[in-house]
């Protein structure tokens, strides 16, 4: 589904990604873990070209999206993104947030877009909040709207950038539940997360990154119980 090869990214003198190779098959859930500053988020942001990699390629469905001459705006709709800080548009209602891209990017008539919006809002359990403004919602509800906003575009895969890190602990569960449902329904997901329990339950593969490189990856059962690399072990010991 998505394949990353030989990816390099610098921020000034800082070498953030040092040759990343990763392939996520259709329907798989990959959780990326690692200490802060290890390049997890940057890798994720390269996958929909929010960051331009300096070197290397990103393929979605076999198509090289890093090659020149593509309509980048259109390519970005292939990958739905959910951010740590929700980034809902505060001047629009929930419905406005969810219908914006279908109407403006997909050029779907407003009526149809609203119908689809209500469908995805039902999936995240927020149908009755359609006319509320983001500030009237809790953090967990806002993040579920952000997921609905990504869902409605029917992207080929979903990118989650620490989706629960900005939430109060009691609100984490409702967001993770929605993500679990998505995984069950066969969505392809790449999730940067610190939620090890979620990774253990849902991930097909856990990817451990450190200092801009993938150190080790494997099924959660293996990664969490008997990691091979001492850096993986040290990291997991600290947080588990």
């Amino acid at each position, binding site marked *: 589904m998505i394949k990353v090869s030989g990816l390099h990214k610098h921020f000034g003198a800082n070498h953030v990604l040092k040759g990343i190779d990763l392939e996520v098959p259709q329907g798989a859930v990959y959780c990326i873990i690692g200490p802060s500053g290890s390049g997890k988020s940057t890798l994720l942001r390269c996958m*929909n070209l*929010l960051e331009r990699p300096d070197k290397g390629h990103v393929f979605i469905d076999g198509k090289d999206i890093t090659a020149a001459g593509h309509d980048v*705006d*259109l390519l*970005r*709709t292939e*990958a*739905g*993104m959910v*951010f740590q*800080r929700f*980034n*809902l*548009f*505060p*001047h629009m209602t929930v419905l406005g947030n969810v219908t*914006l*891209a279908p109407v*403006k*990017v997909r050029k779907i008539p407003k009526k149809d877009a609203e119908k689809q919006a209500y469908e995805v809002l039902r999936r995240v359990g927020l149908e009755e909040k359609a006319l509320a403004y983001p*500030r009237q919602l809790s953090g967990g509800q806002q993040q579920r709207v*952000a997921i609905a*906003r*990504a869902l409605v*575009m029917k992207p080929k895969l979903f990118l989650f950038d620490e989706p629960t890190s900005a939430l109060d602990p009691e609100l984490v569960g409702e967001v993770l539940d929605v993500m679990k449902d998505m995984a069950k329904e066969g969505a392809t997901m790449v999730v940067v997360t610190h939620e090890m329990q979620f990774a253990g339950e849902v991930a097909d593969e856990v990817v451990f990154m450190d200092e801009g490189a993938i150190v080790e990856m494997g099924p959660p059962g293996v990664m969490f119980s008997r990691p091979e690399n001492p850096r993986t072990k040290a990291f997991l010991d600290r947080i588990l």
Partner: protein
Amino acid sequence: MNYSLLLQHYDLLLIGAELTVVMTVGSVTLGVILGTVLGLMRLSAYRPVRWLAGLYLQIFRGTPMLLQICFLYFALPQIFGPTIWSNPFLPDAALAGIVALGLNSGAYIAEIIRSGIQGVDVGQTEAARALGLSHFQTMELVVMPQAFRRVIPPLCNEFIVLLKDTSLVSAIGAKELMYQARAMGAKYYEYFVFMVGAAIVYFCLTFVLTRVSGYIERRLAVSD
């Protein structure tokens, strides 16, 4: 002091006030259009464009407003001909004044617009781009509406400054409020009375503007 002169000649003050308002509206309009363009230029990805806008700001914020007014009215006709300010609608001096004030306030408004746009969280842009919106759509639908709320209070402030600065145009003979007060003061040698009269009119005008801006600010605060 003969205050009855005010009652006798208040119509001249009001005629002056009318031109003051016309010049304010004209220069505000010009300033907002110019300021928006310059503000966006300051945020351009292209260095020469940013540099050009920066140069403009330096020049217009770095020289006196009165000099700019006089430059447009006295100096430009020496190059482009004595009739460049002729027009069927307004006295020459008033038009030159509007353009000068508009060019000047454009520089200040550019900074208001720029900081308003920069004040919108970068996450908003990222979310919009990630959804597939183009750069232009992102500005139009996501960034600008949010920046708009932020720039309203400083813009109102700028309008009030501009209203008062129209008095400088009296220096080139535009018969606005300040000019009328001076002329009448000189005519009767009753400066005190007419200055007080003009001050009251200026105060009333700015008072209304302050109230309107306060109202808009509260409205925006509610919907935020």
